[in-house]
């Protein structure tokens, strides 16, 4: 049954794939149950290598799931579609195209807009992400933060139902990252797209999200879900709010349990995770 209160629904999702070199079956995530509400900003955090990026790739339709169901508005996800757009960790910009050419690449690939319409709306999008005046610059002339703005604008231009963000600020320096978080929230509050955000940065997850989901270590599944009841709009000072710090502690402890296998579990001979 399709539940209207959820945009994205994952039920018992298992993702495994063959590692060609070692000829072994690799289980990335197992038994993932979660829903993303319409218009919600949801972040997934977890220990590195817990399969959170793999899960996001499955939501994008880039890799198939082995078991369970993954639905967007009640429709099974089988391949990439214009209803989703990904913001990648590596910007993945075409180096021979200008900022404008890269921003329009998404809609060009989807074939959903005429060239003139794409160019016109891309100009607005570029302004929205704060790159006005850089339309004709090439990616290699831009800083890492600016490249990620292009990456974001490219996804936004496709006007997706759902925005998927795969650690988009992980490669940026601390200051730039904070600025980008602030800007992302500003843009998100203007567009109110349902957003699924993957990160290993706990502060980032709390700061941006309505809810934070913690994944267990590999094979990943949902360990716990936290409602972030901080009022919006949020500025960067909220990161020093006592409530914020409480959330941070709670999530950090939850992740820490996953980092080190408790001694008694080892002795009891239980399988890791």
């Amino acid at each position, binding site marked *: 049954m399709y539940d209207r209160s959820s945009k994205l629904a994952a039920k018992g999702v298992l993702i495994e794939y063959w590692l060609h070199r070692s000829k072994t079956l690799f289980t990335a995530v197992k038994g993932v149950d979660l829903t993303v509400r319409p218009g919600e900003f949801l972040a997934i955090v977890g220990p590195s290598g817990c399969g959170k990026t793999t899960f996001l790739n499955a939501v994008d339709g880039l890799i198939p799931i082995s078991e369970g169901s993954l639905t967007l508005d009640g429709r099974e996800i089988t391949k990439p579609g214009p209803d989703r757009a990904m913001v990648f960790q590596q910007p993945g910009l075409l180096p021979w*195209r200008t900022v404008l050419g890269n921003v329009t690449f998404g809609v060009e690939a989807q074939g959903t807009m005429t060239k003139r319409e794409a160019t016109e709306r891309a100009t607005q999008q570029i302004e929205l992400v704060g790159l006005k005046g850089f339309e004709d610059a090439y990616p*290699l002339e831009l800083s890492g933060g600016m490249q990620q703005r292009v990456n974001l604008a490219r996804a936004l231009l496709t006007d997706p139902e759902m925005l998927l963000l795969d650690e988009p600020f992980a490669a940026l320096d601390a200051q730039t990252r904070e600025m980008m978080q602030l800007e992302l929230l500003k843009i998100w509050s203007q567009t109110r797209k349902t957003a699924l955000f993957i990160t290993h940065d706990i502060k980032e997850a709390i700061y941006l999200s309505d809810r934070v989901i913690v994944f267990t270590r590999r094979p990943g599944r949902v360990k716990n879900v936290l409602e972030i009841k901080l009022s919006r709009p949020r500025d960067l000072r909220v990161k020093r709010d006592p409530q914020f710090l409480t959330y941070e502690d709670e999530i950090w402890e939850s992740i820490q349990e996953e980092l080190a296998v408790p001694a008694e579990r080892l002795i009891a001979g239980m399988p890791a995770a």
Partner: protein
Amino acid sequence: MSIQSWEPAAPTTTLDRPPAQERRSVVRPSRVKQFEPIVLGTLSVVIALTAWQLVANAGIYSILFLPGPWAVAQAFVKLFETSDIWLDIGTSGAELGIGYGMAIVIGLVIGLLMGWYTRFQYTLDPFVNFFYSTPRIVLIPLFIIWFGIDMPSKIAVIFLGALFPIIINTMAGVRNTEAALLRVARSFGASDALIFRRVVLPGSVPFILTGFRLGIGHALTGVVVAELIAARHGVGQLIAIAGQTFQTPKMLAGVLLIAGTGMLLTTILQRIENRFQAWRPQIR
């Protein structure tokens, strides 16, 4: 209120100013630096030519053994006094144009197909490897048997000479497409055709042009060697006859013609390469 309190803060000692040395780096390169490559390049050539002329003038060797640059230049001018030279240039030029042109078109198509379709690569790999590791000029005797001593046998050698570097480089270009770019394109639902045209092909351009440039070298080798072995007209044939009849200045003038052609074609391709690299930030 004392005068000093509202006086603007000015450096009181010269030490406060950055040393002149450090300032220089922000000034645009001086004119001398700008012309350095041309000046030094010309100078080295002039010195080499002068040294060569001096040795030739010393009279230790006969002009048959070592003609000076002046004698070569005179022979070069003299080449163009008869109309025979145009037949030679025309013949070699046509061979080069047809052979190299075919190599570009066919090499590009095969290279792209081999890069894009793995099965196509597996199928053709043995042949490409065989020909790429064999100097194609060893096939000249065979081509003379098949096609005679006129243009077709030369075209075949030039074509095969240029074909394989173009195939190999084009294939490498396609294969070297960044995985991240492919992922982005797939994520936005791009069709294979669109990925090929908008991502793979533009990304391969530098590799393809490198292949073209390497191909020119092989093609020129093909022209000269094929004509040295057997031909009726052509610049290579001119060099061969001049050599066999001890007209050393004329022979070197022919060499000059070949070298000039090679340098000209390579420069043109280099220019085209630079045009396609406008997006790469300047290193200097």
